[in-house]
């Protein structure tokens, strides 16, 4: 896949990290401010897509990245299910129950397991969108050869 011009590369260098950090901020503050796992995960995937489109990439590297992102996605959804199943062991023994201490509303570390769900669903959404993008790019590269 071909890269883009010098201007696009320079602007991408400046803003891709900021987009990535903003996605992490939205995920971690998901239980305090608007946003959450889905929005932050889409932002993180957007920063990776911006980098790949601006700088271009080799097809072998793209295939490695696709394998890595699909493995990350599966591990993240398994972690979400593991946290949900842990509710069967602690507290009221119900699937999907909030078994950690709730704390005071408004603090960064509060709301029990909700921040953990937010983090792992954010990773899962980011890896899923990136995998779809990489599959489309690899298919296009292979069909034009």
């Amino acid at each position, binding site marked *: 896949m071909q890269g883009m011009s010098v201007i696009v590369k320079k602007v991408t260098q400046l803003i891709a990290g900021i987009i990535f950090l903003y996605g992490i901020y939205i995920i971690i503050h998901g239980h*305090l401010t608007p946003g959450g796992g889905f929005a932050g995960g889409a932002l993180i995937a957007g920063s990776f897509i911006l980098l790949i*489109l601006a700088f271009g990439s080799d097809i072998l590297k793209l295939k490695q990245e696709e394998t890595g992102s699909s493995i990350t996605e*599966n591990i993240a959804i398994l972690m979400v299910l593991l946290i949900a199943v842990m509710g069967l062991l602690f507290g009221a023994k119900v699937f999907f129950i909030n078994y950690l201490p709730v704390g005071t509303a408004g603090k960064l570390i509060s709301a029990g397991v*909700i921040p953990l769900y*937010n983090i792992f669903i954010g990773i*899962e959404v980011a890896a*899923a969108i990136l*995998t779809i993008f990489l*599959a489309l790019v690899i298919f296009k590269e292979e069909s034009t050869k």
Partner: protein
Amino acid sequence: MELAISIILIFMITGAIFAIHAKDLLSAVISCGIVGYGLVICFLLLQAPDLAIVQIVVETITLVIMVAVVLSSTREEIKVKYGSNEIISTLTGVLVVVVLFYFFTLATRHLDHLGSHALRMANAYVDGAAEKTGSANLVTGVLFDFRGYDTLGETVILITAVLGVITILRIKGKN
């Protein structure tokens, strides 16, 4: 506010109709973007910032993927000739829309004003959510605590979509 939402809805419908009839596929994709960003403004007017953030990010990413990856190979539109089959299916579609519209008007006549009949459930959630879940953002509290199964279903839908995309594209790429 209803007037503003009606104007945006008319704008969105115009964009969708233009997307069907555009000659170039690139302008069709861009006018699909009108629908998505109009929906963002509708969400903001209806005071739903969570949905607006998700919609604006996902709309931008899908637009970029469509323009940069999907469109560069096949730019021209495929022409379809109209025979008796297409006329019959169009008539069936119009008939289904008319019947559905009739029964929807019958059903909505017995409902209250928009949103008021759902307030019993919403009030129970809003009253208890902050103390029970400890989450300052009530949307996240409802999404991950009271409606945890919904969120699990959404993520499973996403993973199934990825599996489908990878399977279909890999088979085609090897042939």
